């Protein structure tokens, strides 16, 4: 039952986007989040849409996986749309029914803001769909390296992230096992009033905590025994390689930025 939760993330297929350096992907995402606010008319939104769908196409990620990422936020998008629709005034009155008044500007703003949301979600989920969590960690670590000068613990953060990623499946298996053991002892996780259900979680959580602490302790010992003494003087096995495609992709985004600046009103 636990296995279902993890997939829907990384989709291992060969595509240009998958092969890109996580650093370029992260740079593109950050830039994209910024420049999407430049769009303010139909032509600029059309450019953004064109770019987004072009990237989706390159990634070859099947639509249902994208939909999986959209599903949880679709209500939020709808809500923002309605909010803008009813409360933005300006332009011609299009619809008038008692207290409800809808203006031209309301429709425009509603559409624009929900589209902005929509594209943001698509592009960011494209990152997680085409990049393994460990690649993202590596990318972040390298990009954040300058922060080391400010005594920000970049290496430690990255190590923590990669160890957490490593142990997620292990903890999932463990949760499943303890859950079954407690069900066999008469605990009902899935039914009963909410108070009972919260109580039922305790026999699951405590053993999980206890075993996680034990794991953490043993892991620390094992790491020490293998000569780990902090980030200093360490070399790195995992390597990132910036290729032509990465430069091209960043270039493409720069062109998009320029176009947006030219065509925005």
């Amino acid at each position, binding site marked *: 039952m636990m*296995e*279902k939760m993890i*997939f829907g993330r990384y989709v291992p297929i060969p595509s240009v986007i998958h092969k890109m350096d996580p650093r370029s992907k992260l740079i593109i995402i950050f830039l994209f989040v910024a420049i999407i606010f430049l769009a303010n008319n139909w032509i600029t939104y059309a450019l953004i849409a064109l770019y987004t769908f072009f990237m989706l196409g390159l990634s070859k990620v099947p639509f249902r996986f994208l939909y999986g990422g959209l599903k949880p936020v679709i209500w939020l998008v709808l809500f923002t749309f309605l909010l803008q629709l009813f409360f933005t005034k300006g332009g011609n009155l299009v619809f008038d029914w008692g207290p409800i008044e809808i203006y031209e500007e309301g429709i425009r703003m509603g559409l624009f803001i929900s589209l902005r949301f929509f594209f943001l979600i698509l592009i960011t989920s494209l990152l997680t769909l085409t990049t393994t969590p460990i690649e993202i960690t590596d990318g972040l670590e390298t990009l954040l390296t300058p922060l080391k000068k400010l005594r920000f613990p970049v290496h430690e953060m990255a190590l923590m992230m990669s160890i957490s990623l490593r142990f997620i499946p292990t903890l999932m298996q*463990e949760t499943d*096992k*303890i859950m*079954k*053991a*407690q*069900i*066999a*002892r*008469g*605990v*009902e996780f899935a039914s009963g009033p909410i108070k009972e259900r919260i109580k039922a979680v*305790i*026999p699951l959580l*405590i*053993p999980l905590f*206890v*075993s996680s602490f034990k794991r953490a302790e043993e892991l620390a010992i094992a790491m020490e025994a293998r000569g780990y003494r902090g980030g200093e003087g360490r070399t790195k096995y995992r390597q990132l390689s910036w290729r032509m495609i990465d430069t091209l992709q960043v270039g493409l985004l720069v062109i998009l930025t320029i176009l947006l600046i030219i065509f925005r009103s």
Partner: protein
Amino acid sequence: MDISLSQVEYRYQANTPFERIAIQDVSIDIPTGTYLALIGHTGSGKSTVLQHLNALLVPTEGTVKIGEHEIKSHQKNKNLREVRQKVGIVFQFPEHQLFEETVEKDIIFGPMNFGVSEKEAKARAREALKQVGLGEEILEKSPFDLSGGQMRRVAIAGVLAMNPDVLVLDEPTAGLDPRGRNEIMEMFYTLHKKRNLSTILVTHSMEDAAKYADQIVIMQRGRVMKKGTPTEIFSSPSELVKMGLDVPEVVRFQMKLEQKLSVKLDKVYLSIEELSSAVAELLGRGVRT
């Protein structure tokens, strides 16, 4: 309580691209009072079978009968709690399920979930502790202050206190030292005899299977490969070896001896005592080579 599995199949994540058949066409009968050993390598499907024995998993095909209850796929399976009360499972490394503040509270947790009064549950806790060879003085201790071996026993006591009719044991001695292993196995056997329990032992150990079980089921790649009494199962040891399975040490020794001396003993012996007598008699008579 009789248990029977007929043509049980289980698929993990059925109807998804990740679908995987864990077991198929598994039929096993476990009449009341049977000591059954379920043997197979990791991944052979034996843990999946185990989880069907108290409806932790519902078969995707076929039927599981536990006492009066019939568990099938595509139907609402009611009163699973009744089933679970009757079938106690000792999971691998059961000490991982301990969570209460005191040993006593942890042991009475199971029985009280199934509606036993606190007074009755506490009486059972004392009884169960005695069975697993621990003293009452630890009742008020935190289970997390105990040694690994003691924690294991407390967890087992928590299952015994539910007074199950059927006891399912998943590698109950994994990680214990030889003395602990022996004590725990003997304890379960005594209990099996005394309470006329049905016992299902999931194990890698051919020794334990040969020593305690009256029925053995061997699983391989999700299917039942062989079933029968220990004598039946081990009477053709070379077949098991060919399947990549172990045979008990005694049987292996008998094989080697028969080969070397070019003789065939009248039957397969499952204990050192019997085998050594048979060999002594054979050598006494003199072997013609």
